């Protein structure tokens, strides 16, 4: 549980961090809360030569609302999101997701930006950010861009971030009226990661039918994904049990489903369907309540 040797850098500002990252190329790695990367390093599965600790960049710790959107700084901890009253009101899917991450210690140290940049196939945030159709801000020395969540998760542990880009913020739309949310997860009994995690965000129309539903799934395949077939099947439909069940049946469609000691691919696919239906039910119940 001792990592390989590395150089440790503490940049004073974002510019310096970007510059270091650019300078070290593939050998540099950003350290945020350290709850994804450090365990990998201790197991010597990851061995970056340079660690660039963003710990001093406290201006990346914020949650704010502007122009109908919520923006969250990359270094905001899971616990800050879990306990944010702004988010509870404006985007309750995020606190609900945060609550399910790891344990108290992990939530106090781990950050949303770190988790997204690491893109563990069973991490919780990717499901929620996908379901919210969020955007992720990437900055390098000279420029800044917003990457849609749907393009951000590329493959196993692989994101659309460029080698010299630092993930700096996340933004999501404020939940509109007649919308509902839910994040449901089956925890892996050892790691606490999602064996299956489903984030659902639904919007009802005036006739109380489903205007739109978006579903982010994690823990099932090599990366988190939007269950688009489920979403398509629900568009304009009445929120009946049969409709939900039929739609949820597509939850793991086309996915190369993981299998491990705790759940075979077959069982995981089944869980994906059940958790998708239940997440939709819960989200719809909440949308009806508004």
């Amino acid at each position, binding site marked *: *549980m*001792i990592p390989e040797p590395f150089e440790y850098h503490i940049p004073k500002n974002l510019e310096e961090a970007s510059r270091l990252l650019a300078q070290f190329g593939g050998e540099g790695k950003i350290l945020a809360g350290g709850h994804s990367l450090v365990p990998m390093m201790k*197991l010597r599965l990851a061995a970056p030569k340079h660690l660039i600790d963003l710990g001093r960049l406290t201006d990346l710790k914020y949650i704010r609302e502007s122009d109908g959107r919520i923006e969250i700084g990359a270094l905001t901890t899971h616990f800050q999101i879990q306990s944010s009253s702004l988010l509870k009101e404006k985007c309750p899917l995020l606190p609900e997701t945060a609550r399910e991450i790891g*344990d108290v210690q992990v939530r106090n140290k781990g950050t949303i930006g770190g988790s997204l940049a690491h893109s563990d196939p069973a991490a919780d945030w990717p499901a929620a950010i996908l379901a919210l159709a969020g955007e992720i801000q990437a900055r390098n020395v000279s420029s800044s861009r917003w990457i849609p969540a749907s393009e951000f998760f590329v493959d196993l542990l692989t994101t659309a971030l460029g080698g010299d880009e630092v993930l700096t913020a996340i933004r999501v739309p404020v939940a509109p009226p007649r919308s509902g949310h839910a994040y449901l997860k089956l925890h*892996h*009994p*050892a790691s606490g990661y999602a064996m299956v995690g489903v984030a659902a965000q639904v919007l009802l129309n005036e006739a109380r039918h489903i205007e739109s539903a978006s579903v982010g799934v994690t823990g099932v395949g090599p990366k988190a994904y939007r269950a688009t077939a489920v979403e398509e099947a629900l568009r304009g439909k009445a929120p009946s049990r049969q409709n939900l069940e039929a739609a949820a049946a597509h939850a793991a469609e086309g996915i190369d489903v993981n299998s491990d*000691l705790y759940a075979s691919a077959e*069982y995981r696919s*089944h869980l994906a369907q059940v958790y998708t239906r239940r997440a939709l039910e819960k989200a719809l119940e909440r949308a009806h309540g508004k």
Partner: protein
Amino acid sequence: MPSTILGKRIKRKEDPRLIQGRGHYVDDIKLDGMLHMAFARSIHAHARIKSVNVAAARSSPGVVDVITGEEIKGKLGLVPCAAGIEGLKVPDHPCLATGKVCYVGEPIAAVVATDRYLARDAADKIEVDYEPLPVVTDPEKALQAGSTVIHPELGDNVAFVARLEGGDWKAVESDSSLKVIKQRLINQRLAPASMETRGVVAHYSPGEETLTVWSSTQIPHILKTQLALMLGIDEPHCRVIAPEVGGGFGSKLNLYGEEGVACYASRKLGKPVKWIESRRENLLATVHGRDQINDVEVYVQPDGKVVGLKCWIIADLGAYHQLLTPAIPTLTALMILGCYHIKNVFVETKGVFTNKMATDAYRGAGRPEATYVIERVMDMVARELNMDAADLRMKNFPSPDEFPLDLPTGVTYDTANYQKTLKRLLKISGYSRLRKEQEKLRKQGKYLGLGLSTYVEICAMGPSSRMPAGGWEFGAVKVEPTGKVMVLSGTSPHGQGEETTFAQIAADVLGIPFDDVTVYHGDTFQVPMGIGTFGSRTTAVGGTAIHNAAMQIRKKMARIASHKLGVKPGELIFSEGKIHTRDGAKSMGFAEVAAEAIFAKQLPEGIEPGLAAHSFFEPSNYTFPFGAHLAVTEVDAETGEIKLRNYYAVDDCGRVINPMLVDGQIHGGLAQGIGQALWESHVYDENGQLMTGTLMDYAVPKAHQFPWFETETMETKTPINPLGAKGVGEAGTIGSTPAIVNAVVDALRPLGVRHLDMPLQPEKVWRILKQHATA
């Protein structure tokens, strides 16, 4: 006079330092010039070692030495096994492998370097050339003709076969009215996973020729003897200190090769050497627990009376014996009848070598396996005869006046009232109401299950005649001239809180404030003799030694005080720091009498000066605590997930010294027992690679996974010791595992499920639900 302090909820003396991070564990020991050690370990489960190339490691920065198996051959003894089993095969078990490796994680070479990080980096540079050999991980395959033999010099993979038989089997087998129920049960391999991993600091002083060893151990005195033998050092030159120890669960009731190598390196280099086990090494190369296959056959009268039980045990011992490896499954045989008066028994235990880490003691050590067998069987019998599980148990309990009760297994149960704990459990849990709720829910297609477990365990180990290296315990009490009291114990508590319990015992006998007593243990230079902490023995055996030593002090102080006060010793009472007559007319302070004894100005004739006493308490038998548990579980019909809704436990561990500590032991024990039933499994693949090598893969139970446990204690005192205490360290773990499995099987009863093997992962349950849905 009722005690003012025994039976009281007193907060733990050790907690202020422990919860503030001010205790000192092995890793907190820092000595001048201290070197650090790391191991290169086998990545193959079975292979010949063609060569070990340490050149790159030697030239790695900070490296002082690299030690291989070849080097220590003949200079460092083998890892010992103390189990006394007739005909036991004991393979050579060197501290570092030479010639071949037999499990993944076996230490091959040690690097000693100036810091821990450099040692680890260098260890990774050791190149081992392996020639892989066929691997056998399944003990049943290891028994087959033609299987690869792990230790060819021993002939086959059978380490021992032990049989235990009692009763009249001819009569049982010829009785055609008996129903015979058979079942195979698997008790899976577990990782003890104590919070603190293993660790050792070895410090050999070349001048004094003394070896001082700080070790995270449960048995400092035994370790001292074994290390002296292993290294060829005169035992009085050898000192072992167990500082704060962060849990062991039996896994530190051992001597490991790494400890031997650390001592060897320190003596060779003349410097202190530290080794701290990583979590990965802990999961890989600290002993594992359980791992038995139990084929059981039970003979039952139509009225539900069980008359005979046969069990064939295959115990997966792993590749080598550790200190007590083969002894553990023999405890299963001893306790296989549980708390039922079954007159006929047959148990055959086969210990088998496989290419895995050794199994050894893990909380309960053989008794959880026995309890699992008998408690699962009782549920199967109840189901077969369509009786209620509680009624069937009541029918088979011996009555309280039958104790002491001789069992055909050869053990004698001391005292019990099994009816009382079960009745109490049924009452506090609202058992009959729960059964009605279950009926109702079943009609709605919902799965609620009730699981009973009524257990008895064997504790307070134990009479020396039955133990490999003595079963007594040492206790000493010393009164200082200030009247403050020092207590020494030969036990080695490692989280249980006996500094508190022992202080209560001494304060009770001497009638002094609890805060005036300080307890020490764990240092072989401070405590002259001792055995250690394991087998729920510390309070019952170690506490009694302290009680007896304190009684000697009390007697002497009474004589001195009576001399001064001019009354008879028998008229004096020790209470609230005073020694006084009943009416209080004549009185001396406790400290005053202590000063009299120590300054020795006016001692009565025949009384020696000084105020210290010790006792070696030898118990005449084990003790047999018992209890009744009920688990209430819900099964999710769509996913197979299991929810533990309620857990009720009524435990009787004899006299309770501190109810808060008993609660702590029960709660923690329950968590571990439930963990085995629902989540834990240490899994090797067929190539002998450990698949659950981190805590991201191995599911140690966590507090948030449990409901609040409803616990109660009852007190049926044992006559085996004057305290009447039986022991409680393992009770929760022993009782809870079958309760959970019984509850889940009960929930699934409408689906015709008769048994499920642990851990009860949701997928297993889902497959049954699915099968049922399609059938």
